[in-house]
């Protein structure tokens, strides 16, 4: 299916991506402001299904890289809508036919639409995670063996580099040190792949999912319903068979966080409210990674743990969560690809230093 992306949906997408970003992905507000402007100048791009892409098509992902604090000062350059894609095209001698989001959550779920608008190519309704994660190895593209290289990265001056590494973790390491030299807020084009590769690796319909979640939240607020209940219905309608359930409602009684190796790492506790009894505890590493009630595990990565403020319904990020805040905790099953043996090595509990063995969320909550 092929439809025009509706410019009125920018905030809806940002809101839904905020939920599926499971506490990470950063503030999508800057991305939403930039996208709204881009669409008003260059018009909306098409949104197409993964299966409608030709096998021979040339597809890339686009993403922002660097340090979040630098992004707060340098915002987004207007050139980020095409500079790195053009660099990669020049290097490979091919024109890009479509862009696919790397992840759903924060600015990276909005940047592909800026690119689609600027260079007039469709955006693919899917991504490489079905959620947000902090590193490239935690993508289905990487899990299924696609190389992230050659990747192109560029700063606001148009200065940049092509990185080619055999292994994706090396590509990430090398490009990170280049990013620092380039000023630590860069756009990148990566995972150059064929349409056939895309069909083999991408998580399907995740842009549609983020849009339905965002719409359901907005409608629920208008109707005076709890957004968390509306999200459960929207997820089950959009991706039948997905497990979706409110796991807990609680008041934050403790949060401790520290910055380790560039990650925002920590844990916290909730005391039950609104009919939930007992104490819950959670861990995070940029995104929420683990949730347990009275010592019993109820959700763990790569399944999704989403926190929503009970008063506003807004998703609560790991960075802004604080004592006294009241939250609904929503658990969603992740894309099946992340539960494969290779998927769990890349983004299961062990990849985040958690001691647990992975148990699917539907088995933890029968």
């Amino acid at each position: 299916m092929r439809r025009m992306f509706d410019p009125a949906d920018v905030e809806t997408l940002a809101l839904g991506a905020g939920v599926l970003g499971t506490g990470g992905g950063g503030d999508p507000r800057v991305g939403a402001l930039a996208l709204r402007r881009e669409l008003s100048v260059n018009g909306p791009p098409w949104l197409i299904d993964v299966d409608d892409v030709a096998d021979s098509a040339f597809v890339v992902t686009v993403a922002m890289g660097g340090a979040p604090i630098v992004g707060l000062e340098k915002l987004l350059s207007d050139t980020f809508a095409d500079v790195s894609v053009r660099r990669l095209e020049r290097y490979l001698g091919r024109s890009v036919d479509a862009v696919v989001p790397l992840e759903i959550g924060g600015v990276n779920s909005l940047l592909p639409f800026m690119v689609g608008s600027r260079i007039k190519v469709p955006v693919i309704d899917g991504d490489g995670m079905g959620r947000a994660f902090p590193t490239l190895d935690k993508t289905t593209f990487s899990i299924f063996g696609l190389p992230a290289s050659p990747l192109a990265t560029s700063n606001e001056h148009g200065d940049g580099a092509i990185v080619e590494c055999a292994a994706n973790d090396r590509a990430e390491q090398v490009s990170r040190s280049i990013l620092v030299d380039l000023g630590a807020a860069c756009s990148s084009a990566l995972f150059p792949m064929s349409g056939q590769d895309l069909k083999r690796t991408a998580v399907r319909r995740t842009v549609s999912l983020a849009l339905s979640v965002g719409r359901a939240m907005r409608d629920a607020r208008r109707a005076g319903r709890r957004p968390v209940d509306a999200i459960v219905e929207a997820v089950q309608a959009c991706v039948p068979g997905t497990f979706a359930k409110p796991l807990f409602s609680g008041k934050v009684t403790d949060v401790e966080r520290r910055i380790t190796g560039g990650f925002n790492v920590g844990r916290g506790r909730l005391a039950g409210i609104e009919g939930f009894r007992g104490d819950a505890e959670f861990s995070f590493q940029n995104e929420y990674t683990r949730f347990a009630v009275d010592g019993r595990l109820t959700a763990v990565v790569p399944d999704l743990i989403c926190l929503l403020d009970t008063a506003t319904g807004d998703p609560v990020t790991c960075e802004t969560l604080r004592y006294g805040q009241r939250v609904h905790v929503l658990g969603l099953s992740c894309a099946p690809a992340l539960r494969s043996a290779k998927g769990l090595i890349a983004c299961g509990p062990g990849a985040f230093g958690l001691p647990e063995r992975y148990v699917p969320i539907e088995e933890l909550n029968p």
Partner: protein
Amino acid sequence: MTESAPVRLGVDVGGTNTDAVVLRAHRIVGVAKARTSADVHSGIVAAVRIALDAARMRATDVAAVMIGTTQFTNAFVQAKALNRVGVIRLAYPASTAIPPFSDWPARLAGAVDGGARILPGGYEFDGRELNGFDAGAVRDVVSEFAGRGIRAVAISSAFAPLNRAMEDRAASLVRERLPDAHVSLSADFGRIGLLERENAAIMNAALADVASSVVAAYGTALGQIGLRCPLFISQNDGTVMSASEAARYPVLTFASGPTNSMRGAAMLAGVGEGIVVDIGGTTTDVGFLQHGFPRESSLSVDIGGVRTNFRMPDILSIGIGGGSRVLDGPDVRVGPDSVGSDIVTRALIFGGDTLTATDVAVAAGIADIGDRSRVRHLSAALIDAALHAIRGGVEEAIDRMKTESASVPAILVGGGRIIVEGDLRGVAPAIVPEHYAVANALGAAMGQAGGETDRCFDYERMSRDEVLAEARREATERAVESGAVAATVRITDVEEVPLAYLPGRTVRVRVRAVGDMKLEAAASRPEAAR
């Protein structure tokens, strides 16, 4: 001793009432409440006259006047008499996808946007220049602003909190061409976060004319009463600035109201740590006191829909106050609709036809104002349900503001305080101090002098102890420069932000110092001095 102690006069100009408090040696000797007048200054004159009479003092006894005001916030939010602002952002080619005013509501942008340009300049996170400063380009834009009659300019640059040199250079070029223009620099306001910091600078520039006329009107009002002492205006961190500084930095008064009422409450109750619950006519503001000052918000704050990140007290505001409407039904609701200052005509107890929170409190017998016979018909079930809703809302707000689950002292102040009585969950003790209705004006009167240092240090070149000692010394010196008595200055805040991805060990250190205002008793001051 007491007779020669300096007398301070604190004034709170609110939307409904103008309150005044006369203080001698930290003791309240006179209080007054008057209606805020449309012209503002006659309300000030009335309140100050009554307060001085109550204190049996003459205007010449007063050593300093401190005014807390919401006028600048209101003028901005209502887009009243704002300047059109020309904006120069030094960051090109970064940030170009999000020009200035991108996140402003159309109504305010329409009133303020006088043209915005993104020019070469700014810094990288590690101090390198993002792009060279282009004096010619700045001059061209300033000429264009001048040609269009722009007289207020805001300047921002990438990483100005780490290095403000380019903003200063651009400001001097603006003044070369437009010597009378008001110039606001982002470095004077927020912290990291270009868009929010730039917004604060634009708001400040937009208020330039309002600020100079309001400050002049205050001077006129005080002159009419015969007050010839220095005038200070409350900032939102519990310190004051001189009248001339307030005319230059009006945004620093935003949210000074809640700050003043929290500081006043702390003094009235003799408590430095705990919760303050300020119940007004429409809302209840809950804040947390640390060392007698409100805890600062770590999040961005929206003002009239414009996001900023300058220092603000961390306040949780809920829609429950003395004038809140009570809706009867299967689910009794209190607020957020309120009759506000019309309570004196619209509440049942004052002969009106609207059931308010205050009516319920009178019916329940916890307050005794107005005509109680007019609320006799209210059912016990309705009264109970409404009081339960009020108490539940206030208790939840208190719980959200606490940092730990143990009970903390809570101080209840504000004109609407009468709608809550007795113990509150999570609170021990609940304190209702004398003069609770004028905590705000008292907080203004108690305004202190502050100083801050905020810069980057390399912990490999100096030890952490040396760095902190140096930063404390700088902040203390600045507090004394702005009028603090050296012996009373203490450090109220130390913040270290390691810039982890930088080579070396660069840390951004922000230290804040405050002390009591140095005031001369009126008697020892030459009569003509101002």
